[in-house]
């Protein structure tokens, strides 16, 4: 047992075969402690989403080693077979698009995973309502998604990612659809959750105003990654 939540060693990803293959991730190493928040930066097409989907066990790497929450899940092949269960129990996702289920209402979207994980109705309902309250959309709990604005939908998506008490949260521009005030509110919430519940977070964002909320900056460029502590980063 150690306090490393995400450990990535020489991780590579190649698309295609033979001469036409393209190596998008060219050997990445980094680690992220429990409770730490990492800001993932990089130009468009640099491999940010590819890296995020590999850590989220959605995309299989070509080679390398990856451990999540003290468990080796990939070592040149999947070691952990049930990656769906891993995602359900340990990983929360927040994406640019809210990616909610349109035929479920707000509360049902949020409580779907806790229900699958066997959490009692009283507990998951209370937690969902508390989180909705915190993000200012408690009154929308029984609304269908069609009646929500883009910003409200994104806040629901954030609540859903927190509802299963994840050990790792992977977020792809989670505040892109929110105003400055809500963005700061969300970052404070994520920071609080990261610290209180020892959750490691990787957040893709281009909003450098949010830099103070992160512990580490991961900069990816042309398939290579550099890891810097936030206090060492110079904002340009």
């Amino acid at each position, binding site marked *: 047992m150690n306090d490393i939540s995400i450990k990535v060693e020489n991780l590579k990803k190649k698309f295609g075969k033979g001469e036409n293959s393209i190596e998008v991730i060219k050997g990445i190493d980094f680690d992220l402690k429990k409770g730490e928040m990492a800001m993932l930066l990089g130009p468009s097409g640099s491999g940010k*989403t590819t890296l995020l*989907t590999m850590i*989220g066990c*959605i*995309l299989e790497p070509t080679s390398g080693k990856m451990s999540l929450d003290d468990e080796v899940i990939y070592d040149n092949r999947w070691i952990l077979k049930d990656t*769906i*269960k*891993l*995602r*359900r*129990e340990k*990983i929360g*996702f927040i*994406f*640019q*698009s809210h*990616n*909610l*289920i*349109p*035929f*479920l209402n707000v509360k*049902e979207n949020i*409580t*779907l*995973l806790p*229900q*699958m994980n066997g959490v009692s109705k009283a507990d998951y309902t209370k937690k969902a309502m508390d989180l909705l309250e915190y993000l200012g959309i408690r009154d929308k709990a029984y609304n*269908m998604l069609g009646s929500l604005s883009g910003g409200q939908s994104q806040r629901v998506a954030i609540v*859903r990612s927190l509802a*299963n008490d994840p050990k790792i949260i992977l977020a*792809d521009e989670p505040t892109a659809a929110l105003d400055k005030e809500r963005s700061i509110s969300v970052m404070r919430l994520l920071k609080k959750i990261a610290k209180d519940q020892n959750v490691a977070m990787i957040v893709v964002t281009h909003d450098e105003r949010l830099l103070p909320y992160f512990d580490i900056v991961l900069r990816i460029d042309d398939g290579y990654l550099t890891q810097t502590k936030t206090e060492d980063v110079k904002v340009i």
Partner: protein
Amino acid sequence: MINLASKDISHSLGKFIVTAIGVGMLLGIVLIMIGVYRGMIVDAKSLLNDINADIWVVQQDTLGPFAQSSRLYEDLKHQIISIEGVTETAALTFQTLQIRKDKKMIRTTAIGYEIGKMGRPARIIKGREILKDHYEIVTDAKLGFDINDKIRLGRDIYTVVGITKGAIFNNGEPLVFLNLKDQQKLQFLFSNETIRNDRARGINVTNSNIVNAIVAKVTKGYDIKKITEYIKRWKHKSAYTNDEEIVILTKNLIEMSSKQIGLFTIILIIVSSVIISLIIYTMTIGKIKEIAILKLIGIPNFIIVKMIMQESLVLGILAFIAGNIFAHLIWNKFPKNTVLLPIDALMLFGIVVLVSVLGSLSGVYRATKANPAEAIGE
């Protein structure tokens, strides 16, 4: 645990119900087709059941009187009644007629029977049986005549004295009933000009005491089969038990039609199956992004498979209910007898359930192959 299928259905309820009604109409046609087939069997047996004879005696080496032409002398009935165990005999004639009703010609079959004997009209709903020797007729309600209406048949005019309900020949056509003497005259007696012409040629054919079949009733306790065999040997006639006559009617007369309807029904069931499969597949493709999201956040495949299968089953069951309602709304609009039986509906229900499960497999396959990464990005 949230039931995803019910949530998805209620989210697009109108579209789902309209789809189910569409498929249901197709299933309704399947039920009607089965009903038409059942109706043919019922029609084929209807007259036999009404006459309720034990033995049918017809011309030697024929399958008469329904499957083949058959001619016998009427007096054969006196020889048959003398056989031990035979309690009643009756002579019957059958003839296809075109009769005029207002300005329309209607096709019908006339039965000539002896007053008070086997072959007399069953289920008279208005008027009475034939009581006079000549020029009275009983018609089925489907022909549209009323009591005291006049009908010209051959050289004579007949008065309608009774109306029956559901009196049909084996091909489903409504029946008319005539006194045997009248019917024999109508069927076997030539016109005066023909008789004179035949006489000049040395032919004398004025005997109209010919019938198409003699039917017999056997006393309880006597072996109908043995008496039938005895008639075959002793009288040199063809004789059939009522059960054999039913087989002749259902196998020989309507076999081709029933095969055609059976094949058409099978094709309709296959078409319905393909349509249900396509609908389920299209419904699955329509929410492939949602399925990808569910997989992305960690919902196991079996929950997604369950959702697709439940939706497919609900669609099938709703379509089956709609099909039943549709079939029961239109079944009596068909000119031929259509018989809807619960056992056929039950059989179709089984097929629909099976088809819904099998039909959902293509959707299930597509869903299990859905890549969670499809949910990421626009």
